[in-house]
């Protein structure tokens, strides 16, 4: 339905959907989380899990989407692919920042320290830093910056399976990947609801950000055309 809408209405619809999702995320998720049963050993601090895991999932998803767009740009010169890579990398940095803040808060309560060089934590930090480096390479990398950044995105994507499997390959302090599948029945609904809301919000933010990037590219084309027209008429 969205594809048949005129652009202005599409933007408005996207904005409204985003607003609705944000309100749901802001009010409904914490209500569900508050009513979820308390975990026996950790108590209330375990509830950070309902926000931390969706953010971590979005960090990984953003990295894969960024790598997909970068591949399209590197091998086919696709400009939309490059824009998709940039927008998803930005969202990866945003949700990665949330992971890097919520994780240590949980760790402080669970392990007594904000940070430890556990493989999961270290590989996640590396992934987040690679996405930041992607943005820096694009901004300050000069003429070849976009291609360099695209290649970096592929390395970042290679880190994702390592991040995910690290807790199974090297048993560290971080809970394993089986935590979600072994959730108590009362914890499943708030968790999957939170995951769905965060994922939908990510989708809307990506669509909005892509529209801004498309508009920017279009504007540059128009500005060049106007300057050419002014140059030829004078």
């Amino acid at each position, binding site marked *: 339905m969205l594809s048949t809408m005129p652009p202005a209405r599409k933007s408005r619809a996207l904005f409204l959907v985003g607003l609705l999702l944000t309100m749901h995320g802001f009010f409904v998720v914490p209500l569900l989380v508050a009513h979820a049963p308390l975990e026996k050993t950790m108590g209330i*601090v375990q509830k*950070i899990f309902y926000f931390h895991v969706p953010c971590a999932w979005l960090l990984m998803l953003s990295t894969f989407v960024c790598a997909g767009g970068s591949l399209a740009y590197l091998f086919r010169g696709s400009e939309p692919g490059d824009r998709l890579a940039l927008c998803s990398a930005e969202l990866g940095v945003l949700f990665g*920042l*949330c992971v890097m803040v919520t994780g240590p808060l949980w760790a*402080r*309560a669970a392990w007594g320290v904000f940070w430890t060089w556990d493989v999961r934590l270290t590989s996640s930090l590396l992934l987040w830093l690679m996405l930041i480096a992607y943005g820096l390479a694009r901004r300050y990398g000069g003429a070849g910056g976009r291609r360099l950044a695209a290649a970096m995105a592929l390395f970042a994507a290679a880190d994702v399976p390592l991040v995910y499997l690290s807790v199974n390959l090297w048993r560290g302090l971080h809970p394993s990947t089986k935590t979600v599948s072994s959730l108590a029945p009362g914890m499943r609904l708030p968790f999957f609801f939170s995951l769905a809301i965060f994922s939908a919000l990510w989708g809307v*933010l990506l669509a909005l950000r892509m529209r*801004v990037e498309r508009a920017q590219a279009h504007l540059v084309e*128009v500005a060049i055309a106007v300057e050419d027209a002014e140059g030829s008429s004078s």
Partner: protein
Amino acid sequence: MTYVALAYSFIWGAVFTYVLLVGRRVARIDAEIEEIRQRVKPGA
């Protein structure tokens, strides 16, 4: 409880800040569009 509230507030604060930054970019694009519109206006 403090840590849970901190984590929750940080996430929504970060998302809200990001949306504001995107909004600023939109405002900048709008200003550039207006500038081009003024330049191509007949008689300009």
